[in-house]
């Protein structure tokens, strides 16, 4: 295997994402202030050294809330992508490898799901499964994310199905399970990884949209989307709230996007 060169996209993406992840990780254990602690004397303070991102209408430290909020958002996005990727890959593997009626049936179902706008579909799932909390948001978004993964992996599996080394493996008596897992899955990584990064970004934005609409995280807890929802009601009084929160979302999506881009580019260079 040739040595893979880390390109600029990947590097910058890793730096941005890494920095944000590190901060979020620290934020999970320690924040400068209690993110929910209120202070009547410190309402609507502009960013300062004490409060890097300023304070909101309850005098809560926005920086601490953003740290906690990005933790929630990241957790939701990761769980969502995990559901989407695992189930989607499974569906993609089965349909791509075996083909036939199963393929047709599952892929048409897939098409049907794709036909709905994703947020609408997620809202539908939530209204069916019950209370609006973050676990149901994960479930809803996870279901919504399955089709895109299924489609991508199906193509990859279908393309590999007739490859010579698969035929060889089959002639050597390898079981279908072994072929799928050991021989094919690793070779779909080159399409799966970029799909995961794109999916992750979409999940971050989807969570933000849903929380913005008031579905998902319950107050006083925070997620990036919920913080934006809060921020928009005080845009004139505390513009830094929306600005700081929005920037964090933008940076996160930008960084992960760069990683995805870098991975694809690297793959093309190798190939």
């Amino acid at each position, binding site marked *: 295997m040739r040595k893979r060169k880390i390109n600029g996209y990947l590097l910058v993406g890793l730096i941005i994402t890494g920095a944000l992840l590190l901060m979020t990780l620290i934020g999970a254990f320690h924040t400068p202030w209690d993110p929910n602690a209120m202070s009547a004397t410190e309402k609507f303070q502009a960013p300062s050294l004490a409060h890097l991102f300023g304070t909101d209408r*309850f005098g809560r430290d926005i920086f601490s809330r953003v740290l906690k909020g990005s933790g929630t958002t990241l957790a939701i996005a990761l769980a969502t992508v995990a559901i989407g990727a695992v189930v989607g890959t499974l569906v993609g593997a089965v349909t791509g490898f075996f083909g036939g009626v199963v393929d047709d049936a599952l892929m048409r179902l897939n098409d049907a799901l794709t036909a709905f706008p994703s947020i609408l579909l997620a809202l539908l799932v939530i209204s069916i499964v019950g209370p609006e909390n973050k676990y149901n948001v994960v479930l809803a978004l996870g279901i919504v994310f399955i089709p895109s993964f299924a489609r991508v992996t199906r193509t990859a599996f279908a393309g590999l199905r007739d490859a010579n080394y698969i035929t060889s493996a089959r002639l050597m008596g390898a079981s279908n399970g072994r072929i799928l897992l050991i021989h094919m899955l690793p070779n779909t990584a080159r399409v799966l990884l970029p799909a995961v990064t794109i999916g992750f970004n979409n999940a971050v934005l989807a969570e933000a949209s849903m929380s913005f609409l008031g579905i998902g995280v319950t*107050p006083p807890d925070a997620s990036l989307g919920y913080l934006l929802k809060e921020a928009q009601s005080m845009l004139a*009084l505390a*513009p830094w709230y*929306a*600005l700081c929160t*929005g920037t964090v979302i933008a940076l996160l999506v930008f960084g992960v*996007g760069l990683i995805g*881009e870098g991975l694809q580019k690297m793959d093309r260079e190798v190939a």
Partner: protein
Amino acid sequence: MKKKILAVILVLGMLMALLAACGRKGGETPPAVKERTTANEITIGIAQDLDSLDPHLAVAAGTKEVMFNVFEGLVKPTSDGNLVPAVASNVSVEDGGLTYVFTLRQGVKFHNGKTVEMQDVLYSVRRCAGLLEDGAEPLVPALAVIADIQGEGDTLTITLSEPNLEFLAYMTLAILPADYDQQATAPVGTGPFKFVSRAAQDNVVLERFDDYWGTPAKLQKVTFKIIEDESGLVRGLQSGALDLVSHMTYTQISQLDKNDFHVEEGSMNLVQALYLNNSVKPFDDVRVRQALCYAIDKQGIIDMAFDGYGIPLGTSMFPSFGKYYDDSLTDYYPHDVAKAKELLAQAGYPNGFEMTITVPSNYQPHVDTAQVIVEQLKETGITATIIPVEWDTWLSDVYGKSEFQSTITGLTSDNMTARKLLERFNTQAGNNFTKYNNPKYDELFAQAVAATDDAAQTAIYRQMERHLTENAANVYIQDMADLVAVRNGVKGLTFYPLYVLDVSTLYWDK
């Protein structure tokens, strides 16, 4: 892929610029205010949709607030808390309070053009009192006191089974046409405004009723625009889409341009409280409820979430109800975390417990209050979780079926009786959504209803208030300040001691 990156950077840049522009102080360029084509109409923003347009079936205070302009009873309340004849032209009380004789006003018209006849009045009163032949339960339990209703010519005689001092206040019930079954969709009343249209979740349009018997309304058309989003209301005012919004928060008000708006301040005439479901654990234990009262700092809530605007309350009564209001109950439970912990320990919760607070998510003041309460309860070791629900869900599940542990809302009275505010904690009351259950209270209530002397009755009502406080039926918070944003030029806003918005007195003055 360089283009893609460039595009992303450009978008980021634009976002920053946009946000930076929003953040500019002073607002050198005020948002363009739509030129008014006519000085005859006004658009009022309200935070929630109406529930039932049928005034006898509506339960939401927000609905009654709007429909106050469409319906009238035999008598109606004035802004100073008195009752004046409306559909009736004269009222007299005879037989020591046992008989009420109403003389119908001549020529009062319904909005559909028909004249109010005796049969309409009989129908309306009987419907509320459960005396129609369909055998339905009384819609207004207090009217079960009616023994007999007779209508002859234009004289309506109502005989009570026992004297009732507050009976007249209940005769504000809306007079509706007898032979009309579209009340829920196209309501018809006798008020200064007639109902024109309603678009669910969007708006309700009222128009001046030109055949109104009394002082005609000044405006031709009033549109109530439903915006279930607090910043939406502010943007609506700023953009010129709305002219008047009641029940605003100080945060909302402070975003408005002083050159365009002024603020009028009254009180909302409601009892905002953390209402507890007294039938579920742990709130079936009085010590736990008292602990909550000590743990929650109402002045802290008012300072934190309401910028100091609001009158702290200690029981189910507010100051504008004058003689019934007992100010000494307000500080019955001073903020005392140690005391709260002690009571919790006695009740078997030395380490606190977990509870949920269900709040209607469209009503930001209640959501804000909930957030402050969650913080305050932490000091006592109680972990509270907020469950935001849609307004419809709140009405059906929390208010209708008592499926909640605790909730924050404001309870109002639609007439000037203490009974209206206190009856709901009586075991028999159909609207006892807090499931308060105390024989002593029921007994007091029965005494109050049967009282024949106003002073004695007032004294019993005050005892009932004290009872609610001592037993910590709920955690009482405040009568919220009513900050009304009014576009400059709009005059005539009148505050009532009830939760209503009288639009008949509003006018433009330029």
